[in-house]
């Protein structure tokens, strides 16, 4: 291989059609995209542009109709539901717009959950979950339940849960959609620092000021990529990172 960075995700002419016959909707009409290691990509588009379908395929929640999708070099088309679950567990960390924490479980238990599914022992789970919560600045609230936390805090718990398995990719779907301006800024700063620390991040958003944090902005429209703008190199620091210090 050359010195080129290893592609974390690769979409090759991906087509996705929902429904059949007259009612068929072409959500994706041939999308090709490579995201390399340490990159920080914003996928932008209006609702109905196909970005949610892209997010589902990248997140292994859905499979492409045609074309290829590889994550960390693994072709997903041949995987069954069980294997897809393992890929989601090991390779992807999800952050959702609606936080999607499990109610009645503490922040720590929520963060431990993906490690439980990975089959880790209790002590190891706890150690790693506490480290992840410290990283997002929530060490003090780890025994709180989601309903006792603010929206911003809940979303940071979700980020901790996404990164606790050390996935190849953190996939965030409108992560600031339910947050106020201040909480949004705090959250984006967490993403910036995570990227600076070496995490590969794909953000799906329709907000330009959120997309401005990314190193690369991709515009999706009618199931196709219509613009692909590189801001800084994948190996560089995120453009809006104010404090270049990396949390330990």
């Amino acid at each position, binding site marked *: 291989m050359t010195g080129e960075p290893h592609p974390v995700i690769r979409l090759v002419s991906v087509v996705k059609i929902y429904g059949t016959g007259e009612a068929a909707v072409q959500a994706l009409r041939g999308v090709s995209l490579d995201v390399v290691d340490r990159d920080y990509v914003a996928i932008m588009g209006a609702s109905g542009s196909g970005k949610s379908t892209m997010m*589902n395929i990248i*997140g292994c*929640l*859905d499979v492409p109709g045609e074309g290829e999708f590889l994550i960390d070099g693994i072709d997903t088309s041949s995987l069954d*539901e*069980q294997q897809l*679950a*393992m890929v*989601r*567990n*090991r390779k992807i960390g*999800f952050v*959702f717009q609606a936080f*999607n*924490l*499990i*109610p*009645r*479980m503490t922040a720590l238990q929520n963060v431990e*959950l*993906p490690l*439980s*599914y*990975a*089959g880790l022992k209790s002590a190891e789970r706890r150690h790693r979950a506490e480290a992840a919560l410290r990283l997002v600045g929530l060490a003090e609230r780890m025994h709180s339940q989601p309903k006792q936390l603010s929206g911003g805090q809940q979303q940071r718990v979700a980020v901790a*849960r996404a990164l606790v*398995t050390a996935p190849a990719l953190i996939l965030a779907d409108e992560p600031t959609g339910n947050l106020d301006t201040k909480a949004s800024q705090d959250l984006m700063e967490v993403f910036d620092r995570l990227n600076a620390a070496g995490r590969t991040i794909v953000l799906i958003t329709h907000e330009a000021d959120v997309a401005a944090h990314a190193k690369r902005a991709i515009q999706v429209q009618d199931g196709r990529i219509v613009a692909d703008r590189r801001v800084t190199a994948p190996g560089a620091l995120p453009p809006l990172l104010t404090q270049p210090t990396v949390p330990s």
Partner: protein
Amino acid sequence: MSPAQVFRFALAGLAANKLRSALTTLGILIGVGSVILLVAVGNGSSQSVQNAISSLGTSSITVLHTEGAVGSTSATTAFAEPQNLTVQDAQALASVQGVASVSPAVSASETLSYGASSDSASLTGTYPSYFPAEDDTLSAGAYFTTQEVNTAQDVVVLGSEAASDLFGTANPVGKSVLLAGIPFTVVGVLAEKGASGLSSADNTAVAPLTTVQDALTGFGTLNDVIVLAKSAALVDTVEGEITSILDLRHHETAADADFEVLSASSLLSTASSTAHTFTVLLGAVAAISLLVGGIGITNIMLVTVTERTREIGIRKAIGATPGVILAQFLTEATLLSMIGGALGVLAGLIGTRFQIVGVKPVLVPLSIPLALGVSVLIGLIFGGFPANRAAGMRPADALRYE
């Protein structure tokens, strides 16, 4: 993912909705509890009937005089006139092969008194062979003798209840009691037999046949003849012999017989098959309530799965395999049914300590593991459909669910 972890998730899922879980559990509790209790009631009633019958002695045969009271001619028909059951009849039966003893008996309800205390007791006049045939044993004194029967002595053996009613804890042997105003000397007291059927088998007085006939009942018909076969295996053949001898002596056919031959073993087999049917019927009714409880589990698990669709989506998105989701919901359903089953066993055990509609329930030990096993199966079967639905959900759709 370890089974312990699946178990913990399932427990947390149940704890999230305590009232609903408790009510679902109640359905199984009632089902399992009623299976155990009703089977115990059926078993208890069958045992009490069997005890009552076997207290007659399994190799004893009773010939009952039927059609009319002593010396009655009111039941005259165009065919044979009903005849008395006589001591001569009884003596004729003694010659039958396989008969150990024959005890003719007359009975009457008489007032028994000693000093100031008096009581009504059932008086039987018979031969000494009556005691072994009736499975009686002595607690004090002795039985009266054949000699005393032949000479019509005024002696009496009291049942345990009759003795304690008159004498309390004092020893009645040798005392003189009044039976219908005639003094009798108490020679023995029988050991306690317990209740058999409707009346106590202990509130009795047994005196020589001749004495009772002389003083009280007269020399008309006997009330019954107790025949003791040499072994329980001979009862059926002896029963047949008795019937044909008496038919011959009374010039009768089976259709207009003035006697009835009953043996404990024939009563026992009829009663036990009736009791078995009764137990099965009660068990079936209870099983239906268990089935209803099981459907309650399916119902509530379907609601739970629908309600937690989003949670299922989240769990799948972060790496839960269909197998793990299936295991979690199956465990929840099985826990519900097992907790219900365990509490039902407890409720059933408590219930069997009480008398129910006059029956003392007797626990069938096998019904406990059976009811518990069935409740676990119910959890697996009735929880299987909802759990399978949860496991099969597409994560992308489940996450969108509001």
